[in-house]
């Protein structure tokens, strides 16, 4: 550029310095979205909104929270809940959002799996999404520690012990992570740092990557149509809005997204005001006690399925399978050997695989919550084995699938 003219308006003044018109085109008015997508595609926007809710409520909690083992519990349960004006609101928003965000992530993920949105040039969207899932898991876990209740303490104990690697017995590593022999002050303060600084930065970076990965191959659609975005967008710009298969992100498509977001927010604030309890474990309303384990230890609902995979086996096998379950989803684009990126309902055995996987994960989740005894142990064991077997079978059944 470097050639400036006298500005005719504020927008023009900014445009000469920040190229806002170009940015607007790239980000919104000429960002093309296929028309044939349903409300499930709005989950991305719902997640963005939920993340903002987490961020804002988190900032308000941060101002009164005390990251010290002696004061953390009271700063949350007394200061924030009773003294700070509307402190309870921030806490309930934060707690509910932390739980609901995983529900939406799972819906988002399974939508992607169902419609094959991880294939053919869209692998990076999937991979960056799974990295986001891992980052969110870390964020959730580190945040769970902060109220320093019984569940916080013992979840911290159990999860950091995973890093001893079973028979490797890497106690040094575990003590290094904790900064102490047991979860204590050093542990609380460093998880506080992770929760409010390092992991959020990583999440924001990954959200940027996730969007960038989406911008180039474009979003998939309900029929798995291969759309020529260039030709279709030209049609649209030339005036044939009805004939074009695509539309602008803003404001055309956004209005639909915002409709879904509106419905979601009503549901969300219903939970915040009337049903926040589901996101708060009663055990965590007892202050942390290193000399007493609660009768049952279980993670939040969104980690139950992988927790259950850990449980029925001996420590080394359990850890190995747990690790397998954590990372295997990342490799989905490469394990699915079929070139078809159409809805699962129009594919071969993959259709059954999809619903089977969903059911197995629900069963694992349910068993993870129940005490590890008798019948439940057995069901959990069987479900865990089926889960593993299904992943091993995936490349085989998908390579047998014929090209549509």
């Amino acid at each position: 550029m470097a050639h400036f003219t006298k500005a005719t308006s504020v927008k023009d003044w900014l445009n000469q310095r920040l190229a806002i018109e170009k940015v607007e085109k790239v980000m919104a008015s000429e960002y093309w979205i296929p028309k044939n997508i349903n409300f499930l595609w709005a989950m991305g926007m719902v997640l963005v909104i939920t993340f903002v809710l987490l961020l804002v409520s988190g900032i308000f909690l941060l101002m009164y929270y005390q990251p010290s083992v002696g004061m953390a519990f009271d700063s949350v349960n007394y200061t924030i809940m009773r003294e700070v004006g509307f402190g309870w609101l921030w806490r309930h928003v934060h707690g509910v959002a932390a739980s609901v965000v995983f529900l939406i992530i799972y819906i988002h993920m399974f939508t992607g799996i169902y419609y094959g949105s991880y294939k053919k040039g869209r692998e990076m969207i999937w991979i960056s999404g799974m990295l986001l899932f891992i980052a969110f898991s870390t964020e959730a876990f580190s945040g769970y520690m902060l109220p320093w209740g019984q569940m916080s303490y013992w979840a911290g104990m159990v999860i950091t012990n995973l890093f001893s690697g079973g028979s490797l017995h890497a106690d040094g590593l575990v003590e290094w992570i904790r900064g102490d022999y047991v979860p204590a002050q050093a542990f609380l303060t460093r998880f506080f740092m992770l929760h409010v600084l390092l992991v959020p930065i990583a999440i924001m970076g990954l959200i940027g990557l996730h969007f960038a990965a989406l911008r180039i191959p474009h979003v998939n659609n309900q029929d798995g149509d291969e759309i020529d975005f260039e030709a279709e967008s030209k049609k649209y710009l030339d005036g044939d809005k009805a004939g074009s298969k695509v539309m602008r992100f803003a404001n055309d498509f956004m209005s639909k997204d915002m409709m879904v977001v509106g419905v979601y927010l009503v549901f969300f604030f219903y939970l915040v005001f009337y049903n926040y309890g589901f996101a708060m474990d009663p055990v965590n309303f007892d202050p942390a006690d290193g000399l007493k384990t609660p009768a049952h230890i279980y993670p939040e609902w969104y980690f139950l399925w992988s927790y259950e995979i850990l449980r029925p086996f001996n420590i080394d096998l359990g850890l190995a399978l747990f690790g397998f379950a954590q990372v295997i989803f990342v490799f989905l684009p490469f394990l699915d050997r079929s070139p078809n990126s159409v809805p699962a309902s129009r594919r071969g055995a993959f259709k059954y695989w999809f619903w089977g996987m969903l059911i197995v994960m629900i069963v694992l989740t349910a068993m993870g919550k129940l005490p590890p005894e008798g019948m439940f142990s057995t069901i959990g064991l069987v479900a865990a084995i089926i889960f593993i077997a299904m992943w091993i079978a995936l490349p085989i059944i998908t390579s047998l699938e014929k090209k549509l």
Partner: protein
Amino acid sequence: MESNSRRGFMGKAFGAVAAVGAVGSLVAMKSSWDPLPSVKAAGFTTLDMSTYEENELITEKWRGKPIFVLKKTAAMVASQTDAQKERDVVVDGMHFMLAIGLCTHLGCIPAYKGEKDGFLCACHGGQFDWAGAVTKVPPPRGFDIPPFKIDGNKLVLGEAGPEYTKMKETGITL
């Protein structure tokens, strides 16, 4: 050409300086996360072993960890197998089970259900007998025994006496 190779050299020189700096800062970062000296230093606990009741599990605290102390009854001692005997800590003629009360699976505290049922870990269903050996997986081994030194009828935790060293050598504890 000449300026190119000069640039190449500068690039490599910068790379070398940056690499040294990066390695150095990694070392610093690693050490910053190590347990503090004050944390490591705090950590000797002395127990008076003559105060315990038979077959009553007492939980002491050492380095923030729960320590199980169980004084065995004469019947328990008489019924012990050789393997169980080896895990005993004998102070002044009294037999004790002494153990770090954390499940060797993932570190929950198992509950003592009495002589018959031993210890039950609620987290993933592990079980131990009253001598501290595993009777049901997932825990990979029996309770760990903390370093101890016998001093009359006192026990100093955190210091390795000959009895403890022997247990370690024979692989009874890690």
